[in-house]
């Protein structure tokens, strides 16, 4: 069925194509001079009109528009450049201020620190001196105490010995002989007792 249709259409095609090629014998209408004058006339008329209107009215306007836009854009660019420069200058100024204040803050901090350290040092010195004095005083006291200690001990020893002897013997013993004995003992073994 389809094959038949295809064949028929092919045959029909040949029929039509024959017609096309048969009709192709008219030549070029362009070479027929019948309407040449008319075409020239209308070409000159339309193109002339087009040229005059374009050159006198429309193109100057477009050109002016373009120029105006160009100058406006240029102006805007210049203004933007100026503003950029001013903002850059301000930024620099701002940075300078920040730097200055930073240095100032550092100086203030340093001064304060030095002051505090000086204060602390001076107070410390005074305190040290006081402590030293106290220590010296205490040492002197200890020294005097230590130096007076053997005598006192000797005396105590002598008194104690006399008391003991009195109780043991029941008679007065000569103080001087006992103190001589204690002195003797101290001389012999004083180092052992006082640990110099």
């Amino acid at each position, binding site marked *: 069925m389809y094959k038949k249709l*295809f064949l028929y*259409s*092919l045959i*029909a*095609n040949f029929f*039509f*194509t024959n*017609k*096309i090629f048969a*009709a*192709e014998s*008219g*030549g*070029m*209408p*362009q*070479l*027929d001079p*019948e*309407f*040449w*004058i*008319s*075409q*020239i*006339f*209308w*070409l*000159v008329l*339309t*193109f002339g*009109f*087009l*040229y005059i*209107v*374009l*050159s006198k*009215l*429309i*193109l100057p*306007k*477009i*050109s*002016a*528009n*373009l120029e*105006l*836009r160009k100058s*406006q*854009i240029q102006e805007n660019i210049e203004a933007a450049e100026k503003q950029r420069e001013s903002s850059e200058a301000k930024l620099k100024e701002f940075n300078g201020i920040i730097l200055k204040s930073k240095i100032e803050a550092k100086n203030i901090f340093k001064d304060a620190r030095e002051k505090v350290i000086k204060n602390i040092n001076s107070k410390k010195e005074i305190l040290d001196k006081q402590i030293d004095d106290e220590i010296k005083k205490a040492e002197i006291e200890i020294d005097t105490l230590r130096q007076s200690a053997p005598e006192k001990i000797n005396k105590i020893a002598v008194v104690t010995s006399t008391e003991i002897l009195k109780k043991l013997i029941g008679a007065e013993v000569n103080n001087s002989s006992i103190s001589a004995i204690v002195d003797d003992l101290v001389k012999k073994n004083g180092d052992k007792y006082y640990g110099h």
Partner: protein
Amino acid sequence: MAANPMTQFEVYRIGPEIKVGAFDISFTNASLFMVISSLAILIIFNLGSKKNSILPNKIQLLAELSYSFVSKMISDTAGSKAKPYFSFIFSLFMFVLFCNMFGMIPYTFTVTSHIIVTFILAAFIFIGVTVIGFIKHGFGYLKLFVPSGVPIVLLPLIVVIEIISYLSRPISLSVRLFANMMAGHTMMKVFGGFVVSLGIVGGWLPLSFSVALTGLEILVAFLQAYVFAILTCIYLNDALNLHH
């Protein structure tokens, strides 16, 4: 009628026959499309130049881009001396471009597919450029035919070749545009005819060709307008800046 690919180029009268003396200047379909193209250009560029906003709308952008495109083309090829001729080259480029582009719409007439139209444009350019050359350089313009640095023996031959090439400028300029437009439209018509005749079975191949050709023809329509304009600039450059 639709079968013949050349019938699309036929010129016929629209309205009454107008005669001035012996000349027939009747309004034809060719005239109609010249008028349509010119009016389209004027309307678009008028709308594009009406309002001047810093951020252009689409039509203003179109107008300004075309302006700077043509302006750059002229300054690149002919230098700054060609500025007074900007309006003419702009009109020329736009006219040819719009005629070509309107021709791409089915059932329209392509003005530039007629040798007489392109030849008149080319001849006007040729004469204009020659006149400009003689005004700017006097008889020194004839130095154009004598290239520098050519051996004396070869000079007569070169001069003859240069003169022939100069004189054939209007012909090459007009035939290039006319032949391109005519060939493209004929091809499209032929393939369109094949689509009809081969029908639903075999018509797909010429149809796809036709689609591809349409794209190509739109490119050619732009390209030929550009070539026409840029060759005008080059001829103008020869007349303005005599380098030989």
